């Protein structure tokens, strides 16, 4: 189990998010029942929570609950909130639209599903909720039910009272509940201590963060372990040192970019020229108070500007595209993808020596003798072996793409066809004309199947590719690929495809970087020199002294 000591997030909070990820739908309770919440929605709520930017979300949830209590009648149990969130489990936009398809009105209160949004009017106060928020709000409700069950139980009674005031009151109660919970489960002090330690080291060693390189990170790890001051954060593990230093660099770069934007010319004032609205990037000093450290700013700086690809870990569930070991290999690359090019060698070191360090600390727990034997021999896992593993991962992903394309082609013909055509040599002109004529009037996936069939008959390259896809799917016996899924169950496959494509790009970039490195010095030479550095340090950390005890 990953230790959270020194990270600040409590095990209870972690277990709630683990629980959310494992939650299944009402349908049945078997092991591979479909997951109730989408990974993206859970991650989004995690973003709100860790940036402490949950005020608006609470308010939105209160408005939604107000609408549910009134416009979503529950004949059986008289518990509309339970029906909406748990018995009917509404987490998708389409279900959301259906749930509120009947408008409701009473005096100056109304709930109405408009083409784009759910429009509420609460005693004159207007509020809109987009159906695409259904998933995020459902996850938040589940989170609230876990941290403050009594609040959720009383919600119906509280919200039944007239007036818009009830929503404000309830939303304040909710925010207080989250605030109190986070105070116990997500302390701030320790984290900032780590950050300060890295920046202090940078200034002490006169290292500039813009020129900092792979060797500096190695030096930081060694210096941090030589440092014996009592209150310093622990950097025994090489992974921890790398994480800390890369996260610090990221934080500094965001702040610098923000400063540059603030003092730049005409930014945002000319939106017709495609300039970014300043308010989205930074908040001006309204009322003389510097608002740039606000929760909302932190969240937008961290997440809005980044195109997040989902974590490769989710590819190990059905539809299964990667083994757990392969996903674990991709995970650090995904986490540090912004620094992929600059610190390629550091990432290789983390992957190879981080693993060896884990083996050593495990051996230390077992027995002194086990540790001694492990330390005596160099690690079996080397840079060239790692290179091969990454290549194998790439192949597994390419294979999974084939299978996913095969599964999705009947349901999402337009986008999949586009991806397939990109793989092939240029399409004959007459076929291009034919395809565009066929595609324009086609409205449903079924309409397009004939066009695809004809394309297959007339274009041998395309037919060969489709045959390859089919062959790949037939030989795939992993979870999720045994039979073709129904059209209602394809959401996970679409998510998986997006994730596979994102991960493939990351791996391709990483392999290119590795090749660049090995052009300068062969990987095994590098490995040999690194082994001596790491062995020396590991001997200090785990070696003789400790073994003797």
């Amino acid at each position, binding site marked *: 189990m990953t230790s959270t000591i020194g990270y600040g997030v409590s095990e209870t909070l972690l277990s709630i998010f683990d629980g959310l990820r494992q939650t299944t739908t009402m349908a049945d309770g078997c092991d591979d029942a479909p997951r109730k919440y989408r990974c993206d929605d859970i991650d989004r709520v995690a973003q709100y929570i860790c940036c402490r930017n949950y005020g608006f979300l609470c308010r939105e949830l209160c408005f939604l609950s107000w609408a549910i209590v009134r416009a979503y009648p529950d004949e059986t149990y008289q518990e509309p909130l339970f029906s909406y969130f748990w018995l009917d489990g509404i987490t998708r936009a389409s279900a959301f639209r259906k749930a509120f398809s009947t408008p409701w009105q009473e005096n100056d209160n109304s709930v109405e599903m408009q083409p784009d949004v759910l429009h509420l009017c609460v005693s004159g106060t207007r509020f809109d909720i987009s159906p695409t928020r259904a998933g995020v709000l459902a996850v938040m409700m589940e989170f609230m039910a876990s941290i403050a069950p009594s609040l959720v139980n009383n919600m119906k009674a509280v919200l039944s009272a007239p007036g818009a005031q009830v929503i404000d009151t309830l939303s304040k109660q909710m925010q207080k509940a989250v605030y109190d919970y986070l105070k116990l489960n997500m302390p701030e002090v320790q984290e*900032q201590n780590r950050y300060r330690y890295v920046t202090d080291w940078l200034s002490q060693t006169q290292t500039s963060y813009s020129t900092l390189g792979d060797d500096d990170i190695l030096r930081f790890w060694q210096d941090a372990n030589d440092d014996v001051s009592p209150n310093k954060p622990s950097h025994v593990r090489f992974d921890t040192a790398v994480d800390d230093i890369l996260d610090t660099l990221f934080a500094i770069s965001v702040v610098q970019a923000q400063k540059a934007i603030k003092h730049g010319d005409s930014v945002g004032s000319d939106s017709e020229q495609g300039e970014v609205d300043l308010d989205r990037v930074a908040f001006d000093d309204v009322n003389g108070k510097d608002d740039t*450290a606000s929760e909302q700013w932190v969240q937008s700086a961290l997440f809005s500007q980044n195109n997040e690809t989902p974590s490769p870990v989710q590819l190990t569930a059905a539809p299964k595209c990667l083994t757990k070991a392969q996903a674990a290999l991709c995970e650090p690359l995904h986490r540090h993808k912004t620094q992929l090019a600059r610190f390629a060698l550091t990432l290789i070191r983390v992957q190879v020596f981080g693993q060896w360090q884990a083996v050593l600390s495990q051996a230390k727990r077992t027995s002194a003798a086990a540790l001694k034997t492990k330390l005596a021999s160099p690690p079996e896992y080397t840079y060239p072996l790692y290179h091969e593993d990454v290549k194998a991962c790439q192949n597994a992903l390419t294979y999974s793409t084939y299978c996913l394309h095969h599964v999705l082609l009947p349901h999402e013909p337009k986008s999949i066809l586009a991806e397939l055509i990109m793989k092939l040599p240029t399409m004959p002109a007459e076929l291009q004309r034919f395809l565009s004529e066929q595609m324009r009037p086609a409205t449903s996936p079924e309409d397009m199947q004939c066009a695809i069939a004809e394309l297959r008959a007339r274009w041998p390259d395309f037919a060969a590719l489709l045959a390859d896809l089919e062959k790949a799917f037939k030989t795939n016996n992993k979870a999720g690929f045994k039979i073709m899924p129904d059209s209602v169950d394809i959401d996970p496959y679409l998510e998986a495809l997006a994730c596979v494509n994102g991960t493939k790009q990351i791996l391709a970039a990483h392999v290119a970087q590795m090749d660049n490195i090995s052009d300068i010095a062969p990987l095994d030479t590098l490995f040999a020199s690194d082994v001596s550095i790491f062995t020396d340090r590991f001997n200090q950390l785990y070696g003789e002294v400790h073994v003797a005890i």
Partner: protein
Amino acid sequence: MLPSNHEQAEAIFTAKRYYDTLQNGMGDDNQQTLVFNDLVLLATGCAGGRTSQLMEKVNQSLPLRRQYMSLVKQFAYEVSPAQAAASSTETLEGRTTDKFSLSFSRDPVSPSQIYVILAVHFPTEKQMKNGVTVHIELGDVLQQLKLPPLIDNKTQGLFEESSAALQALLHHDASIVITD
């Protein structure tokens, strides 16, 4: 050397760290964590294969127990509280309320097994389609029995006499709740 806006960079660093930790989770798939959704599944008898595993967790924690019981009562079709006095020593005595009656009969072929026969007088649609769940609270322990869909307002199940759930059901002090 240090960025002037130290506070912002610190805030970003902290938030990013938390997010990474939350995304990675505990990394232990076998450790199923119970969320409210699971309690609702359990209370409405939809938990399927995970019923016994979830029930065990609920029985281990007082707050979960309280939440579960309040949910069961919310979804209840009928409640039969603990019987006031144990008037008889006869173990195979049934229970009757306005809305249901519960009776037991020993299997003539293998006497260690007992039929639980439940008659519901005003059945709901779900009870006829999905079956009936019987929740039993005896002392500190909660139990659950799942019976097949009603036919002619009746349903029955065969249980080992030694099973804990059946023993609880037979007990006078048990409070019984019937849901869909």
